[in-house]
């Protein structure tokens, strides 16, 4: 009996070890590679043995990588702010005011969040050309609304529905206009949900690839995922893996930090929205 329980414990911790190892190893290996340069890269190593920052230096000195990071930060931030502004009032209506067609509207919002991006790509391309936004960061800010807005509305609506009706009854009786109710009663309560959805929307916008690949055409305008995808050498045999890994680590570290810090919030947001971030 005793032996059996020890064996069981050992098996459990072994499984735990495998789970953790597979989760962190690829990122660990990317960091390891990013710290090697020259020929050292082509020897397979499992443990760090050199500490060479030249890949990081060249990432920032050659080309426009620094600029591309700023592009990504700008796009993701503006997308989050705009979708919050639009979503807070919209979800108040959907969550707190009974009116005809509400269920249908919510269904529409939910189905837009499942839209395959490719289905709107050619139409969106036309709209963006018409508005003169091609190769402008605003083309991304505009097009990213297709996934951040429904997601934000959905999660905030779910959250607001759970609040008891008493909290706004007094305000309604006092004849406060709805906008005042949203600002004075709900906004202070909404912060936790807004932090969660904002984070998820930020991560989604930061990672987006298809629109960024299609609507931007010059290097200095690109966001980081496209920049990394397009790093190439003069031939297939000269792919600068060290530089690619350094750039990858740079754009991923802030995300990993965010996820580790806000772990609980992110998990609750994912389960509330059941939408992939």
């Amino acid at each position: 009996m005793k032996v059996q329980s020890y064996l069981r414990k050992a098996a459990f911790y072994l499984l735990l070890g495998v789970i953790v190892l597979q989760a962190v190893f690829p990122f660990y290996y990317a960091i390891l590679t990013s710290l090697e340069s020259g020929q050292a890269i082509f020897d397979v190593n499992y443990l760090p043995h050199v500490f060479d920052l030249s890949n990081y230096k060249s990432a920032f000195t050659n080309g426009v990588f620094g600029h591309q990071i700023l592009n990504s930060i700008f796009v993701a931030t503006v997308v989050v702010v705009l979708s919050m502004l639009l979503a807070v009032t919209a979800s108040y209506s959907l969550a707190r005011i009974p009116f005809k067609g509400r269920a249908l509207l919510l269904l529409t919002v939910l189905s837009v969040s499942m839209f395959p991006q490719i289905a709107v790509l050619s139409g969106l391309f036309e709209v963006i050309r018409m508005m003169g936004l091609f190769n402008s960061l605003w083309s991304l800010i505009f097009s990213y609304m297709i996934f951040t807005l429904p997601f934000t509305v959905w999660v905030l609506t779910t959250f607001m529905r759970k609040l008891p009706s008493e909290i706004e009854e007094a305000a309604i009786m006092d004849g406060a206009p709805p906008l005042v109710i949203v600002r004075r009663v709900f906004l202070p309560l909404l912060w936790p949900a807004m932090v969660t959805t904002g984070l998820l929307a930020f991560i989604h916008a930061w990672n987006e690839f298809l629109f960024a690949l299609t609507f931007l055409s010059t290097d200095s305008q690109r966001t980081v995922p496209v920049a990394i995808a397009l790093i190439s050498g003069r031939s297939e045999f000269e792919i600068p893996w060290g530089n690619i890994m350094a750039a990858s680590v740079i754009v991923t570290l802030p995300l990993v930090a965010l996820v580790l810090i806000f772990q609980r919030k992110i998990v609750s947001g994912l389960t509330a929205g059941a939408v992939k971030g």
Partner: protein
Amino acid sequence: MAPQSGLARQRTRSAWVFLAPMLFVLAAVALYPLLRTIWFGFTDASLTSFGSARFVGIRNYLEWLDYGDGNGEWLGLLVDGRWWSAVWNTVRFTLVSVTLETIFGMVIALVLNQKFPGRAVVRAAVLIPWAIPTVVSAKMWGWMLHDQFGIINDMLMRVGILSAPVAWTASPDTAMAAVMMVDIWKTTPFMALLILAGLQMIPDDIYEAARLDGVGPVRTFRRITLPLVLPAMLVAVVFRALDALRIFDIVYVLTPNSPETRTMSVFARENLFDYDKFAYGSAASTLLFLIIAMITIGFIYATRMDLSGTRE
């Protein structure tokens, strides 16, 4: 319904005022582009001249090309072998990846649902793949799967599973497996977290009762855990499946131009922007949309999702 009071009417009016900006943006970014995509599928639009596109009927989908000598052939998307192989690739990818993600996600969720020291740290570690941008994941794995200098070949050769290095991403036999590997690695955390949330809703006293009755762990899992966690799991599976059906990034970055991994999204974008067959690509996008829309509607009906919020 009782006649609405003045107050209720005023609130309904402001509801629509509040909704208008959001609805306008969604119409501009989703509805109008979708309708235009569908329209382009019925025209001869090209990348440089979509302003002057003319209606050509269903020619992009199906057309009989007559040779003039009594013979001829069918042309169009519906008889295009490349399209159907892209459909098959997408379906195969979705079935295999989502199945394995569900199994691995369940295992990880069951482990994380146990009490052990350092659980918070493990849960954070498990989330890391989810936090890494898809493109970066594809690049990282592309490097690990490198045929000459990749660590995966090195590992497998060290333990004797492989005798010679494999060109994982380039070889037609393994390209799809490589894409699946990256996707499974990246999205299993999402699955695990959703299942874990479901597991945590199961009250402890059910397990306690089962233990007192001497029910073994396997039976407990099959008779108690699985049925109770099933609803949460199904939601996760459907969201993942819808997501997998539109996969683009990993394929584009990890195995560019490989017919073995070309999915519907990749096929559509190739035609739209690389081959200058804008109308043909739009037709493919439309079909992809139809497929996903049908699955979504089926899901909403099947689960009778409560959207009005009145039954809460």
